Each structure stands twice: as C-alpha cells, then as structure tokens.
C-alpha cells in the first residue's frame, strides 16, 4: 500500500522564479493538505483540497496556489519566489476533510531559493 508520495525531493530555484511541487495521496484518501516547514519550526498549514476545490487556506499570500486532479493528486505552485520561501514543503492526506483520523505525511520537498 503506497503511502503519500511527493516529487521532487529536492529543488533549487532562483529568486523570482516559479515552482510546482507534486503530491500523490495515500491509497484510499481523497483530501490533500499542504504545509510549509521552515528550519527548526513546526509545519504551517498552507491550504487544503477536496473534490478538486480549495476548502481551507492558512495565512499565506496569493503567490501560493494549488490544484487537485480527479485522481486526488495535487500540485502546489509558488510564484515570484522569495528567499524566505526556502523550506520543507509537506503534503498530507486524509479520508475526507471532516474526519478526525490521523493525517499521513509524505517525505517532503526541500525547496532552496537562491
């Protein structure tokens, strides 16, 4: 049973560029959430997708956008990259947006902006 998979694992981008990160949820899960984790900090919620729509959003600017596909996989896009966007980006999946069961996380994508 495949868990949550993310790609790529590492990425280096230049300030001002755009980046797309990808996530496939755990088999049987239909809800994907994205988190940003800066070094030495806990993960911070970016947004959540369910039924191909953004359902909830954290305190992140519009430069952060996403998409969910019919097969439940998801993308996170970040435009006009800033040095401060350097972080580990985590994808988490659950079964339904309202369930109380645990969220399963992927291994993350380490984004470095230079």
């Amino acid at each position: 049973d495949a868990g949550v998979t993310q790609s790529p694992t590492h990425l280096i981008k230049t300030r001002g560029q755009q980046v797309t990160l990808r996530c496939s949820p755990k088999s049987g899960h239909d809800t994907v959430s994205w988190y940003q984790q800066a070094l030495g900090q806990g993960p911070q919620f970016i947004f959540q997708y369910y039924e191909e729509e953004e359902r909830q959003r954290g305190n992140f600017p519009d430069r952060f956008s996403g998409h969910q596909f019919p097969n439940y996989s998801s993308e996170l896009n970040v435009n006009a990259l800033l040095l401060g966007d350097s972080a580990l980006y985590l994808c988490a999946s659950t079964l339904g947006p309202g369930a109380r069961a645990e969220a399963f996380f992927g291994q993350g994508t380490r984004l470095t902006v230079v």
Partner: protein
Amino acid sequence: EDQVTQSPEALRLQEGESSSLNCSYTVSGLRGLFWYRQDPGKGPEFLFTLYSAGEEKEKERLKATLTKKESFLHITAPKPEDSATYLCAVLRDGGSQGNLIFGKGTKLSVKP
C-alpha cells in the same frame, strides 16, 4: 489566539533514562491532539491520536496522555533510535482534518 507550545525545545537523555515531553495548547475547542515523530529531512510519522481528557495511548516505549490543557509524551527507557524531533498538533472544532496547528517540536537526543 489558538496556540500550541512544546517544551523543552531540546532534551538530551542517556540510554535508559526515562523522561516526559510536554505539549500545552490553547484552542477554542479541541477536536483531537496528535503526536508525530520527525527524523531530519523527512516527513512527520504518525504516533498517536488523543480525543478527550483522561485518554492514554501506548506504543512500545512511548505513552501519550491528555488533560484539558496539555498532553504528555512519556518515554520509558529510551534507546538511541528514539532520537528524533517529536511534534504535537491539534485539530480545532470547526477545522477540517487537514488543518492542524503544530508546535515547534522537541528535539530528543538519546546517547548510548
């Protein structure tokens, strides 16, 4: 403001030296509290979910407990392989499952 605070920030133990990690929370209504383990450069790995005060869960050398204001993660006779950052997260009433509020974590080092 909803908040999760973990203490200590870092903890160094000798192998076999038991201790506890603390997670205190201030939320409008607790829907669930989660403990995760995170190894360097990797995603969080689920450990426990607690839903109501007085609840306890155990897994190998770890035991999680919950009160109305805080949760403890007790580690009994730790081994070097228990070294990791332990994250606490809460799900609030009205928030969906994915919208977790995390603490900054406790970095645990266990020396042989």
